[in-house]
């Protein structure tokens, strides 16, 4: 099983994702430079966090024109697993692979801290090792993670079960008090309708080893691997 980590100029969680896949998950992994134009041979793609193109203009807005993106889109259209983490999520939004857009955090400040997420579905390629209504603890680190979409889109996200993760309290309470950035409906991560693309603001790669204070993120990567083993192939 081979993962690809797409590297844009300004990506800075690329090495972190690579490390987790290789050293923690014991899977094959390679970097994919943004100027490449094929993703042949990969089973899953990671669009890592960071500040592609300095986050200039809008987060992800310039990266989405990178030469690699048509292949990423094609790979996704064919049902390939694509996970966008933080800046990767923002790029997926700009590229139209996921609906909606990101606004600045309501506090107008960059926020780096651990938050709690409620798992809304456990039958997806990204959450099958987790349990519905379970709460996981995971770090966020972003200045623009305030998810926005229009009412119809929000309704369809809800109706179709595309909101995989929502911000919540330690006991799963989903009130505005536990919304770190102003996201609509406490949205922390969404998938596309087909379920093979996930965008999430929190960083699972930062909590996949005990030495970093927690392992909840491990299960997201493990879900992907499990899915590829069981279903994907």
């Amino acid at each position, binding site marked *: 099983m081979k993962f690809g980590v797409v590297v844009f100029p300004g990506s800075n969680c690329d090495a972190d994702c690579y490390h987790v896949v290789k050293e923690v998950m014991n899977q094959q992994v390679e970097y994919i430079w943004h100027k490449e134009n094929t993703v042949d041979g990969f089973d899953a793609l990671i669009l890592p966090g960071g500040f592609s193109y300095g986050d200039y203009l809008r987060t992800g807005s310039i990266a989405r024109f990178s030469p690699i993106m048509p292949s990423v889109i094609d790979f996704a259209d064919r049902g390939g697993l694509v996970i966008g983490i933080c800046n990767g999520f923002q790029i997926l939004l700009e590229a139209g692979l996921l609906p909606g857009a990101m606004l600045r955090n309501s506090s107008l400040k960059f926020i780096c801290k651990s938050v709690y997420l409620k798992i809304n579905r456990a039958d997806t390629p990204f959450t099958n090792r987790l349990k519905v209504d379970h709460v996981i603890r995971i770090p966020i680190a972003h200045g623009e993670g305030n998810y926005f979409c229009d009412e119809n889109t929000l309704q369809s996200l809800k109706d179709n079960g595309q909101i995989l993760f929502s911000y919540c309290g330690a006991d799963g309470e989903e009130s505005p008090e536990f919304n770190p950035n102003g996201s609509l409906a406490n949205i922390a991560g969404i998938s596309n309708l087909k379920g093979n693309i996930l965008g999430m603001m929190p960083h699972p790669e*930062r909590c996949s080893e005990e030495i970093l204070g927690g392992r909840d993120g491990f299960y997201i990567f493990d879900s992907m691997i499990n899915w590829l083993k069981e279903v994907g192939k």
Partner: protein
Amino acid sequence: MKEMSYKEMGLLEQEYEQIIEILGRQPNYLELGIFAVMWSEHCGYKNSRPLLRNFPTEGPQVIQGPGENAGVVDIGDGQALVFKIESHNHPSAIEPYQGAATGVGGIVRDIFTMGARPIASLNSLRFGNLDDERVKQLFSGVVAGIGDYGNCLGIPTVGGEVYFNPAYQGNPLVNAMCVGLVNKEEIAYATASETGSPLMLVGARTGRDGIHGATFASEELSETSQEKRPSVQVGDPFMEKLLIEACLELIKEDLVAGMQDLGAAGLTSSIAEAASKKGRGVIVDVSWVPRRETGMIPYEIMLSESQERMLIVPREGQEGRISEIFDKWGLDATVIGEVTDDGMFKVFEGDVLVGAVPIEALTEGCPVYVREGIEPPYYREYRDFNIDDLPECDAGEALSKLLASPNIASKKWVYTQYDHQVMTNSSIVPGDADAAVLRVKGHQKGVALATDCNGRMVYLDPYQGGMMAVCEGARNLACVGARPLALTNCLNFGSPENPHIYWQMQEAIKGMSKAAKVLGTPVVSGNVSLYNETADGAIFPTPVVGMVGILKDIDQRCQMAFQDEGDLIVLLGRPREELGGSEYLFVCHGIEKGAVPELDLAEEHNLIELLVSIIEAGLVKSCHDISDGGLAATLAESSIKGSTGFNVDLDFKGIRRDKILFSEAPSRAVISLDEKDLAAVKNASVQQGIEISLLGRVGGTSMIINDQGIELVNLAVQDAAKTWGEAIECHMK
């Protein structure tokens, strides 16, 4: 552009004469500018160089001491740490966001210039009173600037300190530290150039940014500082990120003979550095320098401090491969000159020679002033201040007040704006212990980092205060279980031309040197920032210490939070009663006086040995040193962090209780441990000759401090946590 006189450029009359003598003629405007920036305090260290010679700089662990872009220490397994701290005080006073951001950019360049991958940033900040609107603006601008720049680079900002005191009202301090990791054989040096080597400039195009920034940094802040505003530099962290990746690729492929960042004094100083090997000279053609603005004259090009630029001296025949790598990263590299063998710094504009000065005159030739310090009158007066005349405040109320003081309160408002986890090495994050701890992937060891300086203590007694800064840094590392290795420092002082200030410098450096010697932590890099004063006076002398250390086994790392109900709480070190210079006197009595607590370096050394040994042995569940706020604040912080109360009974022996509770005397730490380990810890303490006292136990929901059964303090942990946790946020709303 209006031409400046030599005086406006910061040169003294005698220095101007000296230049004429060196050249054998009047300098032209460009040459004058070159001398002025190279002979500024910022580049030439003309007032501080003689004092800096006191620092111990050698040790078996030292690979590179002061003199290169950053210091380097050996951490075993063929690896080394590269680190340095630097000030960006004046630019931040003018434009806090950009000033702080470019400060981070500058220090990060110093680290990857040495071939190291930057792995962590820290910062040490000082502002005036947090009730002041302008101070709030400065504080929030600086924090946002540091955050945005470092976050974009993907370098975790893992630690630092912030203090607020009226002494910094008009002159904030912004010191940024960066730490890099390198394989020993890949360390790169600045001065490896051979005659005929081309000089390549890469990165941002040159604009009129920050001309005379180095001079400006070597002056007091005044009304006219505001007028120098056009010199504000804007940072481009994205460009810097590309430079990091590209330059580290060059090093991996061994393509460069020398590499030098462009910092203060821009092209002028980096070129002079790159060619400063004995006898070397350099020619540079300004018409080859890619520019952002039109109509720039050679003077502006040579002195511009545009950010995010690097100077590369390629290995012979490697220009092509170097250009390929830069191209991959979307960067342009341009040859702008070459190394010669005539010892001259020659600037051309096309065919026309527009300036020529001997290189040695710029570097070694920089004038040095050995001044005489005079003990200021305040020193004895404050030292002899009698604290016994003050009334004693209610212990519980005093503790609550201290926890709400921005100097002691949680700094989470600051560090949540910094990405402190990127790179997935942060094993102890800000706020959880006295030092940050990073893992080194693939190894069992860990790296510990901290910055420290209590400016008030240094002000009251520069010698003692200087020792205290070094000791606190080392102790903070020991509290997480790390053995201190070496230090970097940033000397923030007022004007050295004032003999009282010069005395502060002299004494502080003496104290720091002595402590560094005894603790075996040599000084491997640093930075000097003088003239930190306004019409209202100078700042507290603030020699910030950045300390790095190594944990043998990262799995034994120790944090400050109390762990389990019933654990014993133990004080290591003597019960102390000196209140001089304490935050308690400041917060509860409005007084910043008193004799600074005595410090015994041998005792400190033994405490550090003790802490490291018992933590390595896995005997300690929590550890937190005693510093700001004294014993009471230390207990409270461990309690808040652990979300559990404690009950201690102190033996006050009839001594004023505020003295025992709030003394900031050094060489002490509070640990908690499982009862079964007490004997072993006692044993170890006896061996190190460190006094040990059992204070009480962890548990409950309140912080309870008794004097032989009489309750002095009873605070609900929840309430105290709120006070402590939200104090800064409340100010900033």
